[in-house]
């Protein structure tokens, strides 16, 4: 963390925040399984940004507005349409984007460990002070990427964040949602934070910002060229609908 005190004694941050945004099936869409039961049908299905990623982006933008962060970079790993998800993040206020392109299925084949490794690689290049991810994605519900990334980087992790505050001493204090209630942890930076539902309410991208976003930079690199081992560690053997509910009976 690098803080510079300027002439007016205002703490001006040069902190860089990296945010992950995943393109998933829109949560309002009725999911259908492919005929061969190999996966969820995604052809011609409306996609949007993972809701927890939206919350992560919102938190990063708020940090920028509070002047705790200087730059917010949105990262997405996925097919060419994932750039639209990055554009949404840019329209919300992110400064630039990084699109790692792949045609592997992002709901099954590109797995959390691989994503964590890609992020680790990007962190080497970008050197952010804070990485905010959604706690999980709504297509695979893994809830692993943030934790694995912290492990790979040997960074502190504050998962299921309900509230994020910055201390003056370059530490963060995070309230976490746990089974028993709320737990507050403090961590030094750099760190990984994963966003939970109640962290904030994401803003809608408004027109002037949508227009501005079209001009922001998005760098593109192919997953295969990153020199990261993205071999799936498990295979999905079958995807099927949950059994239909039977009528209850009065005991």
């Amino acid at each position: 963390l690098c803080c510079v005190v300027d002439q007016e004694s205002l703490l001006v941050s040069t902190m860089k925040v990296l945010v992950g945004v995943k393109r998933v099936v829109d949560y309002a869409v009725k999911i259908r399984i492919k005929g061969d039961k190999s996966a969820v049908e995604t052809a011609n299905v409306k996609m949007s940004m993972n809701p927890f990623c939206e919350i992560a982006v919102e938190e990063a933008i708020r940090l920028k507005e509070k002047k705790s962060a200087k730059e917010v970079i949105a990262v997405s790993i996925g097919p060419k349409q994932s750039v639209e998800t990055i554009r949404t993040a840019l329209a919300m206020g992110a400064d630039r984007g990084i699109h790692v392109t792949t045609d592997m299925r992002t709901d099954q084949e590109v797995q959390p460990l691989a994503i964590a490794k890609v992020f680790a690689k990007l962190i080497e290049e970008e050197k952010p002070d804070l990485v905010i991810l959604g706690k999980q994605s709504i297509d695979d519900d893994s809830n692993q990427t943030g934790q694995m990334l912290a492990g790979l980087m040997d960074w502190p992790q504050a998962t299921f964040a309900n509230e994020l505050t910055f201390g003056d001493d370059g530490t963060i204090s995070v309230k976490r949602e746990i089974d028993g209630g709320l737990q507050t942890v403090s961590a030094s930076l750099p760190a990984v934070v994963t966003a939970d539902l109640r962290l904030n309410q994401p803003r809608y991208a408004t027109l002037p910002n949508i227009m501005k976003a079209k001009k922001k930079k998005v760098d593109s690199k192919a997953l295969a060229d990153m020199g990261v081992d993205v071999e799936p560690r498990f295979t999905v053997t079958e995807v099927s609908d949950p059994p239909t509910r039977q009528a209850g009976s009065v005991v």
Partner: protein
Amino acid sequence: MRGSQVIGYALKPYAQYVRSHLRQYTKETNRSNKTMWAHSSAPMAQKPRLVQLSSERFPQLTRGDFARVTDGDLQVFERLVPSRVLTEPDDIVGHNVDWSGTCRGDGKVLLRPKTTEEVSAILKYCNGRRLAVVPQGGNTGLVGGSVPVFDEVIISMSLMDKIISLDDISGVLVCQAGCVVDRINGALEPHGLMTPHILGSKGSCQIGGNISTNAGGLRMLRYGNLHGNVLGAEAVLPNGDVLDCLSTLRKDNTGYDLKQLLIGSEGTLGVVTAASILCPRIPAAISVALLGCDSFAQVLRTYDAAKRMLQEVLSAVEFMDRASMEVLQENLQLTCPLGAHGYYLLLETSGSNAAHDEDKLNSLLRYVMEEGIVGDGTVATEPSKVQSLWALRENLAVALRADGCVYKYDVTVPLSRFYDLVADTRERVGSNTTRVVGYGHLGESDIHMNVTCPQHDDDVFGALEPWVYDWVARCNG
């Protein structure tokens, strides 16, 4: 005043409605002023507040010379609709009060037929015994038309919820009158079809009720009203005769088009038991834009630009004012995505090609931003965001209900004067009320003005009526 409270309703048209309702056996076709179903979302968990009985609130209404339900009648009902006769007050109280909680009847019996034959048998019997009945669908109406005024027998259509047939190619759906609109859409969705109309009360309202009230809804701008989309209807007349006009043909010029009389007859000519509806295809691409303007003139210019630049893909134009956003925030904690503006427009486009529609919408947005007629706006193309933007408009009635007592006026006025009624009303009674809100279908020049107070206020009511009606009449609305 005899100490009885008068509710905030359009009393004159309501009384006319009630009279026509009670006169159904004399087959008078005298209908009340048309009032459309207003919009509210969420399942109508009917909380039966102990509201004053309509018979006490309107002492000038007299109960017609009808018989009263006896034990003998109950036995016959039990024979006609076995184990579907409800008489326990706890079971019936929800059916005696309307959704807005302002009208309460004193019906003692609730019948739940499953077939047209049962409805026919019930009406034949009641006709013979001179027992008054009230047909009831989802009980989501806001004008007191779905509940008894006195002790009418309530005929609930809820169990008549079968979908009889669906023709994928022609898009014609035949179903019983008790089908809930949301469930109809659920059944149509796998076939890529949808109902031609949609309203905020879709989770509870039934197609029979929609037809009987000629409900307009949020997509009327694009798909037209039920007079055009209902291809056929089956109804039971007051004497028990079954009127079968259940055609499924788009073009059918045989004989008199009797179903058109049923549509909008509000249960005064017969009980609709089944209908065939022409269902359009679900659009491949739906986008919604919420725009904020700072003057009503800007709203009209935006609407004009939208019609010009979106043309055939424009499917809905809804209007909300600042007060609407405030009530959504205060009562339902629904935040407005845009900053504070005086007026908001919700535009929806529906088309077969997402890219084309997005192009048209982007051109429109660029234009209105450059011209400065829109202060701010947001666009949604993902279903989840489209739903949350629509939720702002659909939840207004629910949000307003939480204020306490709502005086609702659903009127059509010339477009240039669309908001003037609200502004004038605010000036007239604003200081004595919680709020004065205006929202509605800008596309049809139909504004829903709502005035809320914590409880009924004689002074406010007196200041509103007949002043509002005079105002509307003066501009030929």
